[in-house]
């Protein structure tokens, strides 16, 4: 059925349903290999009530909705409609930071709030959020956390969805209900605040963990209209260290130990291409810088906040040096061409606009398997003629070092049909190989969803049951995941 | 005492199941973490101390009746007291072990004594021993040793060999060793030989009240007549009977020593010198009745009282038997004083020791269970890397030896006195 918006216009003004072709086109495709498809409208609701009305209308009219919280460019195909005549629910306008509670270190934000907005606002209160490595400045914090993008500080990643705590959700049933602790209280944040209730505890309500059902869901279960996020103190002193290695296996045990003992804030590993890409603004200089860098760098950020921050930093630095020594590793503070300032900027900065297209392959694994994954992807690259030196690799300990986000970024020239075709083969072949060797595509975008749910029919079946309950009309981003 | 006296304990059981485990604080591994052989073998909750409290309540309240299965749950237990120690860590004044025995008494009174145990009791009655052996042969082990016979002579110390050491040919060497040690140390002692009678302790554990009382009265009378002030025994079961039960059932005031206590004292005082090296790595098994159940008897005749409204305590204060003050150090110190002996501990030691499996009539009534229990201990001993498992009770040693033999283990089993003898 063609979406008929007239019955909605008392709630959402007609002029907030946009269908000018360039706009529609901008939502029809992203940087992934997912097939393009034009939506019917883009709409920009501003309130929970409007989102709810939209969902209820979509249920009645069987209109597919694709929720989008970040401004582009999108990368993974999750915001590209999979079925025709979809309405894009553009939530970027719902961008209020509703509350920052310094004492309890929790903030409540709307989905349109970006990292570029949130980080300085928090800093103003002496707070910070553990965020992904160089997020897009316009990336929605809520979307990033819902998609379980890895965050930089494994110590604070008590569970994979951290620092996401509670969500307000307009479910695919047309109902509004809060997740977690907030699900126990009145259906109004203001009322909850008046009662002294926080939105801290992620579990629940009751025997269900509703938040867990909207994470990793690509907007297929409900539309999140607010979220609470856990915060930490903004450091007053800080140092970033580098530990060089010729082979990732050399730093593996060190990373294990760092995350085991919870030493350090940011802990992650980059290969030379990725490090160079991140610190060198001039594209033309990157290859040379990369060539001069060690093959791998373990980055460790230390900081001090609260009481005795300087002494905290000093003790941590001493412990870090002792720990590195256990593994015969040397602790440095950068390299020629990678200054201390570059390193701090890398941790705090936003990513630059892409100069080249790139295909990302990322998944979760355990650290002991990472060297094998690297070898596999390199062998696939070699086989199909992809320049291995261009391959950017990033390994991020998650869940306090129990799981690791492993990311291969393969820049290529999308305009070159031969390269694009090669990339598609590399992407598929590498993904196939990786999954065989135990890579866990926990965020199965695009091609991966077939791969993952094809092997895991059990999860697919249960998720379809859950989807049938939470989105009975299958209006929320249909065609994604296993739906 | 009767099971009714433990109704409150049953109602106060928190079903925490601590009684199934060794004291949690002391746990060192998955493999050797269990405390109760009965629940490990029988599995249903009723095979635990807590479960038996519930069975008692259920039977008292007429909710259920004694079936064969129920009888098994009640008697397939070593009465080892591990549960009692673990329970009392938190449930300070609960008495699960006593309650379980009273439950046995109830079943026995109602005619549910397992047949194998009935045979033992019959043997006790007719032959004054638990082994079904003719009473005339009781003194055979000592016939040629020329020891004072206290049925005719007098001595301040009586050596009580006990049923196993008296009758079991494979084991009676230990009794001979014991008396040799006593002689060497110059102790003035005697024995009753063929007229020695069972201590009665095992029948008590099986759930009978009268035999132990009878044994106590008979033995005490004989001892008094012979001028005995101290009874010494190498058997942990006898030790427990004399030390804990006789005062209770017959007002005994006689001094009771286990051979390890006496020998350790003699070594400490320099009356015995252990000089010959015995090069051996050994681990020591605490017999339940010498270890956690070997605490001194404290007479008490009082009643429950409440303080702070509802907190339960006793008037006068009731003695606590929780294994805190069992005989643990004497055997260890004795072993360590033997040159060449390296003592290593099993994970479950002292009050947390795993039972040998021979207690509570289990050896007689549930031999498979009993042997399984022993086998568990053998594995634990082997895990220490010891060459030998040393104990201080003939029942433990018998069960272990059987288990070692059947299981084809290399581990040697000794009574502690055998090592002392080698070192003399």
């Amino acid at each position: 059925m063609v979406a008929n918006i007239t019955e909605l216009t008392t709630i959402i003004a007609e002029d907030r349903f946009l269908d000018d072709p360039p706009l529609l086109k901008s939502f029809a495709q992203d940087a992934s290999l997912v097939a393009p498809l034009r939506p019917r409208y883009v709409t920009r609701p501003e309130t929970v009530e409007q989102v709810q009305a939209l969902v209820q209308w979509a249920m009645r009219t069987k209109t597919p909705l694709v929720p989008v919280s970040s401004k582009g460019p999108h990368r993974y195909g999750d915001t590209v409609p999979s079925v025709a005549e979809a309405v894009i629910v553009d939530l970027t306008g719902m961008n209020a930071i509703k509350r920052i509670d310094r004492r309890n270190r929790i903030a409540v934000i709307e989905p349109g709030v970006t990292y570029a907005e949130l980080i300085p606002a928090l800093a103003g209160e002496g707070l910070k959020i553990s965020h992904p490595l160089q997020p897009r400045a316009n990336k929605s914090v809520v979307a990033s956390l819902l998609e379980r993008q890895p965050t930089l500080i494994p110590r604070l990643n008590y569970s994979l969805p951290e620092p996401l705590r509670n969500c307000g959700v307009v479910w695919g049933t047309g109902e509004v209900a809060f997740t977690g602790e907030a699900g126990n209280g009145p259906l109004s944040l203001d009322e909850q605040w008046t009662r002294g209730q926080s939105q801290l505890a992620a579990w629940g309500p009751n025997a269900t963990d509703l938040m867990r059902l909207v994470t990793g869901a690509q907007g297929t279960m409900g539309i999140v209209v607010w979220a609470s996020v856990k915060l930490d103190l903004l450091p007053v002193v800080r140092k970033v260290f580098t530990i060089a290695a010729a082979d990732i296996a050399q730093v593996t045990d060190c990373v294990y130990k760092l995350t085991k003992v919870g030493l350090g804030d940011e802990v992650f590993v980059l290969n030379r291409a990725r490090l160079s890409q991140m610190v060198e603004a001039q594209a033309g200089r990157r290859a040379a810088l990369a060539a001069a860098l060690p093959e791998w760098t373990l980055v460790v950020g230390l900081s001090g906040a609260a009481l005795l921050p300087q002494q905290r930093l000093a003790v941590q630095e001493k412990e870090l040096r002792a720990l590195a020594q256990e593994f015969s590793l040397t602790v440095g503070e950068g390299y020629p061409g990678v200054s201390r300032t570059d390193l701090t900027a890398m941790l705090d900065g936003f990513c630059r606009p892409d100069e080249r297209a790139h295909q990302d392959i990322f998944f979760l694994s355990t650290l002991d398997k990472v060297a094998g994954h690297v070898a596999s992807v390199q062998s696939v690259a070699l086989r199909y003629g992809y320049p291995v030196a261009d391959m950017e690799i990033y390994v991020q300990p998650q869940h306090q070092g129990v799981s690791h986000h492993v990311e291969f970024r393969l820049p290529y020239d999308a305009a070159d049909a031969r390269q694009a075709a090669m990339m598609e083969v590399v992407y598929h072949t590498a993904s196939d190989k990786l999954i065989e060797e135990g890579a866990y595509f926990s965020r199965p975008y695009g091609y991966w969803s077939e791969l993952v749910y094809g092997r895991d029919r059990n999860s697919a079946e249960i998720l379809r049951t859950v989807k049938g309950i939470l989105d009975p009309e299958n209006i929320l981003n249909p065609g994604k995941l296993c739906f | 005492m009767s099971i009714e006296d433990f109704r409150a304990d049953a109602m106060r059981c928190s079903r925490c199941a601590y009684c199934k485990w060794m004291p949690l604080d002391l746990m060192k591994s998955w493999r050797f973490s269990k405390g109760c052989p009965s629940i490990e073998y029988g599995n249903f909750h009723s095979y635990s101390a807590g479960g038996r409290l519930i069975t008692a309540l259920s039977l008292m309240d007429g909710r259920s009746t004694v079936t064969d299965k129920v009888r098994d749950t009640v008697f397939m237990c070593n009465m080892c007291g591990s549960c009692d120690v673990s329970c009392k860590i938190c449930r300070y004044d609960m008495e699960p072990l006593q309650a379980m025995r009273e439950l046995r008494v109830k079943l026995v009174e109602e005619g549910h004594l397992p047949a194998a145990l009935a045979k033992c009791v019959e043997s006790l009655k007719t032959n004054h021993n638990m082994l079904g052996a003719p009473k005339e042969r009781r003194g055979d082990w000592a016939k040629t040793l020329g020891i004072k016979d206290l049925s005719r002579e007098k001595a301040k110390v009586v050596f009580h060999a006990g049923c196993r050491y008296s009758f079991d040919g494979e084991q009676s060497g230990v009794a001979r060793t014991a008396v040799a040690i006593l002689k060497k140390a110059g102790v003035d002692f005697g024995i009753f030989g063929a007229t020695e009678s069972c201590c009665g302790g095992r029948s008590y554990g099986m759930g009978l009240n009268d035999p132990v009382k009878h044994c106590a009265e008979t033995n005490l009378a004989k001892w008094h007549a012979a001028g005995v002030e101290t009874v010494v025994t190498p058997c942990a079961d006898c030790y427990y009977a004399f030390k804990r039960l006789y005062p209770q059932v017959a007002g005994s005031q006689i001094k009771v020593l286990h051979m390890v206590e006496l020998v350790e004292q003699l070594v400490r005082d320099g009356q015995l010198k252990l000089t010959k090296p015995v090069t051996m790595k050994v681990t020591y098994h605490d017999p339940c009745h010498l270890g956690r159940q070997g605490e001194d008897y404290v007479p008490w005749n009082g009643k429950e009282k409440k303080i702070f409204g509802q907190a339960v305590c006793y008037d006068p204060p009731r003695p606590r038997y929780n294994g805190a003050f069992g005989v643990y150090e004497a055997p260890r110190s004795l072993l360590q004083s033997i040159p060449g002996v390296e003592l290593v501990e099993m994970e479950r030691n002292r009050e947390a020791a795993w039972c040998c499996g021979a207690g509570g009539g289990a050896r007689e009534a549930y031999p498979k269970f009993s042997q399984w229990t022993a086998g568990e201990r053998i594995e634990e001993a082997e895990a220490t890397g010891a060459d030998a498992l040393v104990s201080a009770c003939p029942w433990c040693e018998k069960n272990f030896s059987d288990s070692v033999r059947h299981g084809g283990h290399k581990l040697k089993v000794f009574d502690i006195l055998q090592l002392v003898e080698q070192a003399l």
Partner: protein
Amino acid sequence: MEISRDAYRAIEDIVGPEFVTDDPALLDSYAFQYLAELIRPEHSHFMPRPWAVVMPRTTKEVQAVTRLANKYKIKIKPISTGWYHWAAPLKDNEPTLQLDLRRMNRILDFDEKNRFAVVEPYVICAQLQAEVMKHGLNINITGAGSSCSIVASACAYFGAGPSSFSMGNNSDNLLGQEWVTPAGEIVRTGSVSSGAGWFCSEGPGPSVRGITRGYLGSRGGLGTYTKCAIKLADWPGPASLEVKGRPPGYRLPVPENFRVYTIGAPDWDSFAECYYGIYDNTLGYIFHRQFNLAGADLATALWLTYIDPTKTLNDVETAAADPEIKAINEKARISFQLILAAHSSDGIELQDKILDEILTATGCYKVERYCDKDMAEFTNMYLQRMGHKHCNFIWAGGYMGSWMQAGKPDWVKTYVPTAIETFKNDQDSGLLVQCGGDALMGCGSTLAGGGYYGFEQFVSYDPADIKSVKACVKHMEDAVVTCREKGIPYGKEYLYLQVAWPDEAVWNALARAPQTFVFDFQRKIKEAFDPNGLGDRNYPWLPEGWGKSAASAQKE
């Protein structure tokens, strides 16, 4: 109430005849449960009796028994270590198989590097802790103590304890589950379901675990968890706990890189300030308010008596009257235990300095007597191993936890005076242990990293004295009324009481919740995964449309 012979025979064929019973006395040992006397007719100590008890050994056996239960329409009620009245069948005359999982007792995998273990339901915390400590690792032992099942705390029930402040709640530490649904399907969640190993509990895509591992878990009401993977924490202490002393007050020496303190506060405001200080400064390997479970009036007298193996509870009476002990007790009245740990001497010294600054700033202090070697070592033992959990019952054999609303510290301090006053009033009858109105115990945080906690009132009563039992019930009801009147969410006592309610009453209560979405969701999940209704309302639901109009009028 007998199970059909056909069904019984079929179960025997699955698990072996020695692992199933329907002997009434044996069944009674499962019907007897903690708290039963507070809610059962005539204060019976027995919950409804299961019709048979079955002990499967493998997941396949659990599945086969579950399928059979579907065929014969018999409810199933799994227990692992099995504690609480709701672990037993909830209703009389309802055919129920109790699945006692004690034979599923293996540690299936231990991955030292990736810091997880895979365990079956009857592995208890103390066992796993002892094993992983050998490798410098630890587990978060929940408040229920180390005699309890890890699977239960990670998959099926609340998962917080004294170490959750640093190690997280076991719901956070859960890395994957194996679940036999009431319909008899075997489900695995997270990475293991993708064949990638047990290291991640989320995804692929949305996390299936979300349908059961909520706040309390499904408590045996929605099938059986047959294994789970649990994340392990760092253990900077020795490879084996070298415990000293005699029972019951075992002691654990405090290593050089540890500190064990009891911190006192002059009032609840200072307590909260001190809490925020500790929270902001991320101090605390273990953070717990433990000893007050004995009641603020008697705690010092009890614990100093307890650690002396020559004493008895009678000595508490004398001790409580001793002016010196009274003085200590006043210092410790509003107090909590804090264990610090570090990997270097610099690290621990710095933590000490930071703590001292917090104490100075907030007017809080170390309670000296509790920090003396004997008490510190006992505290260390108690909280590291959690092997004294059932001291909860020490006074009279009965303990019921009321209150326990959790939230941010600033909020918790607002309900504390009410909780104290209500309890104190109920003690006046002399039918509850008169230990002071503040018998509030609780972990420093139920959430990893801190910032969220709640206190549970330890109500001690005598289960063998019906008057005392009734007084406890009265206290529960008083607490509910007080909460209602003061607009405080209901505490644990409300959940306990509900066990006795008819379905309709429970549904009416659920329908009055401010948000009922989840109960409708759970109904649909139940319809999908438990078509024959084998699970009970420990996984609660609202019948379709139940109380919708009435409830919306009444919503608070």
